């Protein structure tokens, strides 16, 4: 048993890193949108699904590279339209309404995808077919390298965009204080639109590179959102870099758990999510101090009883 574990572990880690990259991109999308608009976008995973489906669709008519670009462009347009129709008019509505709206958007994307592309998983050919790399006992496909490379590139570009460009700075300003940003002439609603388009682009790229690895299904979006939320929350919904690291770590945890027993796959996501949220709650201290006070009060009453 242990031998099997040792022998398979590197492979699990590799596939974990690959999936983790996708989770990381979903998480970064969630973080960007949340930072600027305070919304947790349930439809973020659907952008990945759309990216994958559209790439597969366009690849039937175009060479791969233009197909990917077209898929990303169309997804970004869809993201912008979604924001324009659903979020922009209700920007001042409560958080509850906004999250329900993104949930509704996810439902619509999912069912439209089902109607357009059917229930069966669709495949995309590898970007550069060829022999896989063998590292120890692990097989690293070329597509895996594409996934890792594209993720790294996107994250670096994103960092440059946020740090160096005017638009990126405006987005950061909006994220840190929307009122102050408005006072210096930045429109939070407009920045919201930009953040949604960015998130859609990230999702679409993720979908395009992962499609050859996992196949594309109409229902993959929501699963990805739930998995992306784990690292996003781990990063406090604030730090894109933290979200990337968290995404990869979570991908590995999930791959190892699924390797041990395949039924664990979904359990892991849920348990991790709840564990992280609870730990977060503990760190903020309210629950901890509460419990501590309880223990202290109990001790005091015990002491008092002892003295009587």
């Amino acid at each position, binding site marked *: 048993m242990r031998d099997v574990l040792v022998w398979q572990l590197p492979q699990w880690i590799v596939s974990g890193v690959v999936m983790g990259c996708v989770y990381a991109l979903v998480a970064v999308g969630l973080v960007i949108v949340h930072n600027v608009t305070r919304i947790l976008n349930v439809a973020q995973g659907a952008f990945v699904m759309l990216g994958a489906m559209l790439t597969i669709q366009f690849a039937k008519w175009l060479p791969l590279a233009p197909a990917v670009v077209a898929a990303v462009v169309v997804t970004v347009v869809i993201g912008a339209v979604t924001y324009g129709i659903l979020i922009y008019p209700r920007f001042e509505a409560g958080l509850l309404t906004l999250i329900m709206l993104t949930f509704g958007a996810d439902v619509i994307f999912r*069912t*439209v995808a089902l109607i357009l592309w059917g229930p069966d998983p669709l495949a995309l050919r590898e970007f550069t077919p060829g022999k896989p790399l063998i590292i120890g006992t692990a097989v690293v496909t070329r597509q895996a390298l594409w996934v890792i490379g594209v993720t790294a590139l996107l994250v670096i570009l994103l960092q440059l965009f946020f740090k160096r460009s005017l638009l990126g700075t405006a987005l950061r300003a909006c994220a840190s204080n929307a009122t102050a940003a408005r006072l210096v002439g930045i429109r939070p609603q407009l920045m919201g639109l930009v953040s949604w388009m960015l998130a859609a682009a990230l999702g679409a790229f993720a979908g395009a590179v992962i499609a050859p690895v996992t196949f594309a299904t109409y229902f993959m979006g929501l699963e990805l959102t739930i998995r992306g939320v784990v690292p996003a929350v781990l990063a406090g919904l604030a730090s894109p870099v933290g979200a990337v690291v968290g995404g990869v770590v979570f991908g590995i945890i999930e791959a190892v758990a699924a390797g041990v027993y395949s039924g664990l796959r979904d359990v892991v996501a*849920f348990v991790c999510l709840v564990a992280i949220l609870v730990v977060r709650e503990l760190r903020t201290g309210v629950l901890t101090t509460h419990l501590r006070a309880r223990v202290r009060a109990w001790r005091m009453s015990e002491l008092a009883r002892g003295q009587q």
Partner: protein
Amino acid sequence: MSGRVDLGRVLRADREILTVLGAAVFALVAILLLGGAGAYAVTILNVVLLRALAATGVVLLTGYCGQLSLGQGAFAAIGAYISAILATQYGLSPWLTIPLACIAAGVAAWVVGFPLLQLRGHYLALGTLALAAIVYQLSVELRGITGGASGITSIPSLTLFGRELGSPWAYSWIIGLVFVLGMYVAGRFAFGRMGRLAQAVREDETAAEAIGISPFGVKNVSFVSGAVLAGVSGALYVHWVRFLDPVPFGLQYSIEVLTMAVFGGIGSVWGGLLGAITLTVLTEALRYVTGVASAEYQALAFGVVFVAVLMLWPRGLAGIADVWSARGRTSDRRGGVPNVSSEGTAEAEVGIGGGALIADHRVTGPIRLQHGDELVVVQRLHCRFGGVKALEDVNLVVRAGEILAVIGPNGAGKTTLFNVIAGAIKPTAGAVTVLGRDIRGLRPYEVARLGVARTFQNVRLFTEMTCVENVLAALEAHDGYGMIRGLVLPVRARQREDAAVDEAHRLLAVVGLAEFAHFRAGDLPLAKQRALELARALARRPTLLLMDEPASGLNEAERDELAALIRSLNASGVTILLIEHAVDFVMALADRVVVLSRGMKIAEGTPLEVRNDRHVIEAYLGEAA
């Protein structure tokens, strides 16, 4: 006076009884009418009632308590599977397994509620979504127990006097009966104590905690109530259809139930039923007209309807009905009371008249103290936020029976000190005891329950609730029947609630708001909002009352009235700690004054001593003085 109080009570009482009666009449008429229309019509009715139960659960949790659950399907599935498994594998009668399944769903919600309900807003939505995914996954994976994807077959139906209730019509009587029971639960929740607490938590958790409501406790009751309704819906379904696989309670179920609740009106007990009727009938009609029965288009239609309703009528069908009825009823309900926007009409009542009333109201705390006892002791208190030192080495004693004022320039740390005493901020170092208890580890609602009430610098009311409901929330915060006791002993629970309503009206009279009892709190002008906040604090029968800048935004006359009210409160035994900017106001009112500047205490003494203190003059007028 008493006539108006009774009217309010009758209206409220009626609405609760009307809920149960209305549900009973609807179920009876529908069953009798559709009974003749054939099995298809009755089947539709059964589906509608089952969905309505689950959707009503969403209304309680999301509409009333403001907690979004995307996983109502999880609890329906738990109810369905528990009942099916107990009936098939252990041979128990469905009469027994359905209640057991219902309890199981409630217990499951109670247990998962502990981690999940710590989460706010969207975290909770995602947590419940993940929960639904996991329950679905488990029902597929645990083949030994759930039969996996092939499901559980030959589940027994309900039997009555040895006869199986096999036909949809026979079964619809059972569903109808349970539906009425479900609406009883919903009505008890919505128009009783829990509903008011839930709305308070939805509107402002901080303010709710300040008046002694445990937000977590209230959320958990709402969560469990909603889960029980979903659970019984699932369990009833399974003994009717007599076959169960993971599909019916998957994600689509959660979406449909949520859509129904939103469509029907998430803020109304009737929302679930209205949504279930409309959407089920529309779906069937669509299917009939187009001849297309495909699940994809149905799912898409639900998504589009869901989004459209959220965009266009966020309050759903019941919300539209509410607007109409409110328009029709407003003048009657207010009984010729002058319009609130015309200020100055009832102003003379504030304070002076209230002062006379307070004497017979007798606001006294739960703990008897000798005049001059140490009520609050703050020792060597430090508070830092990052690099900012909000409070440094502050010592403070509040003595029973006094009016102690804390003054200081902006940024002196007054509100921070207040928040520490109220339990809202945890100190970096130092000790704080209130009424002899170390409160550093207590949550704000626990401090409130020690006998500490507070008002806020920026008034924090439950703006969507009426004035009387605002006060009621404070009165009933931890005093009254819980959900289960309220359901078992509805008459006694209602008597207590009615007594609380009377008390609330009396308190409103104390602060001069008697005529505004049924106004939305958010519609009042600022002075009246402050008065209402004070009434809400008094409802706590506080030993110690913390008032954060009570005079800000008031004109000269209103200030005098406020001062008179504070004095009469103090005379009736309430210790008062107040923060104030208006120095004149404080000097005339306080027994002692503490001056903070830049997080440090720079002076303490009688108003006269403080007024002449060199440090104080410096702090207020700058170094040059």
